[in-house]
């Protein structure tokens, strides 16, 4: 965990409200693992503005890549950052995804939830299937990045403007059935809205496979001190505990989470 003044090296709009931000971040990028996040002090807000957490979209040498969607005044202010400007970033934070799948990797992304999964695909050292869901075509990002890595990409949008019509669970159910038909098991990795994560977790239970779910909660400190982003969890022995999404997560296996 490092607190680094990062220089912006690239900032580009992706589709619609989505942006990619590249930062010269030294040790943060060098030590980042897929599924971890960074806590960003957004310039241009008042001095009392809290930091904002963002999943790590990619890391190469000393450059960290983030993906964000403009959803409020913090992310709006981020779009005004120019190359050469500096922002204060704490990271890498959180536990990250385990990188030893027990079956065929199947990644399930909703909207900007694709960011940590793209980093995961790069670091898994093997290929698999990625399912990307969104409300509409502009919510589907990073498709080419997965294809370049040799991953099979399946897309579902709720309005049918790209891929099949409906939720991402449609191609997920088909993918799980196809793997089962040839005697293979899956290892699920998912990041997206809670409803999607719950649905992915339920499939993992049915299929008897593991699902690593990345939870998205509003955070304050980002380091496990303030207890703003807690989640009720269950240990393998059935006992309950309260975890901090920022510190004990943000990745939990589906069976751990008490929704």
């Amino acid at each position, binding site marked *: 965990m490092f607190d680094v003044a990062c220089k912006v090296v690239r900032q580009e709009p992706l589709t619609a409200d989505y942006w990619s931000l590249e930062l010269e971040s030294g040790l943060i990028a060098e030590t980042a693992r897929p599924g971890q996040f960074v806590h960003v002090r957004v310039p241009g807000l008042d001095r009392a503005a809290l930091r904002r957490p963002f999943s790590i979209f990619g890391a190469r040498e000393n450059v960290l890549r983030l993906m964000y969607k403009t959803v409020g005044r913090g992310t709006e202010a981020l779009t005004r950052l120019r190359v050469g400007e500096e922002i204060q970033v*704490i990271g890498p934070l959180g536990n990250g995804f385990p990188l030893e799948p027990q079956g065929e990797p199947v990644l399930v992304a909703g909207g900007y939830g694709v960011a940590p999964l793209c980093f995961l695909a790069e670091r898994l050292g093997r290929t698999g299937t990625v399912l990307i869901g969104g409300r509409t075509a502009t919510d589907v990002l990073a498709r080419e990045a997965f294809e370049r890595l040799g991953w099979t990409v399946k897309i579902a949008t709720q309005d049918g403007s790209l891929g099949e019509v409906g939720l991402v669970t449609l191609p997920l159910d088909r993918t799980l059935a196809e793997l089962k038909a040839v005697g293979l098991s899956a290892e699920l990795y998912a990041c997206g809205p809670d409803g999607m994560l719950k649905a992915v977790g339920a499939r993992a239970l049915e299929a008897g496979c593991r699902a690593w779910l990345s939870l998205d909660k509003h955070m304050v400190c980002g380091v496990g001190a303030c*207890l703003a982003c*807690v989640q009720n969890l269950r240990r393998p022995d059935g006992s309950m505990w309260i975890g901090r999404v920022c510190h004990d997560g943000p990745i939990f296996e589906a069976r751990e989470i008490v929704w």
Partner: protein
Amino acid sequence: MGEIDLSVDLGGVRMRNPVTVASGTFGYGKEYAELMDVTQLGAITVKGIRLQPWPGNALPRHVEVPGGMVNAIGLQGPGVDGFVRDYMPFLRTTGVPVIVNIWGTSVEEYAEVARRLGDVEGVSGLELNISCPNVKEGGHAFGTDPRTVSALVAAVRAATRLPLMPKLAPNVPDIKVFVRAAQEAGADALSLINTLPAMVIDIETRRPVLANKVGGLSGPAVHPVAVKLVWEAAQAARVPILAMGGVTGPEQAVEFLIAGASAVAVGTANFIDPTTPLRVIDGIADYLTRHGLRSARELTGSVAMG
């Protein structure tokens, strides 16, 4: 710089400098240990502890507002025995005095927590959180009735020899009444202010944003309120004051000292810039140098009212 003496005695808690962290904003110290040198702090004040583990409130537990935030974490914690077992070993390694914030739902609970912490190595003082719901008394806060403040402080006083500093509620008509009640009952120092009761409503859903409906406001927005209360409290206080509320840099800390505080705590600013307490320590020393002063103690209560 070498001649500057930053040390203060906060009612028996010997601090090498007048800067600590506000309870609840710094976990149990180790959460921030990778981001800042916690051994440089004058003291570490840990998150509130009661007798048993406590789950806290439902989410959302916080909301950002202009000039700060409103929180209702609900004092989630491991209980006194869990705290001593899981967190004191690290805290002892820091060599920094540890102030444990304690709470309960009855006078007896406060006293029992204080008793159990009495002979724990490394615990240097107790901050009494008297602004939490007093379930036994029918939902009123201990901190807004001088008689309950007096009874509570006296009961804890009888249970421990550790330095005691009640954390006073800001939402009272006359803070001096509470200052007197606390010190007459045996307080060694006073801590103020706690968060200001606050509420945020989502106008689209017409529901309170916080699951607890109401919470406490902290951050720069409360700083001038805190300065006024510290200044008033100092006029009635015979014991040292630990001031907090909206310290984001050395300027607010120096202001608190001038108003009458002996030490200050950095709270919400830790979330935004974890190095704030260290900047505050350095900045106080710079201020003293610039003004030809040799000790932080010379600043305390030096406000010019003429």
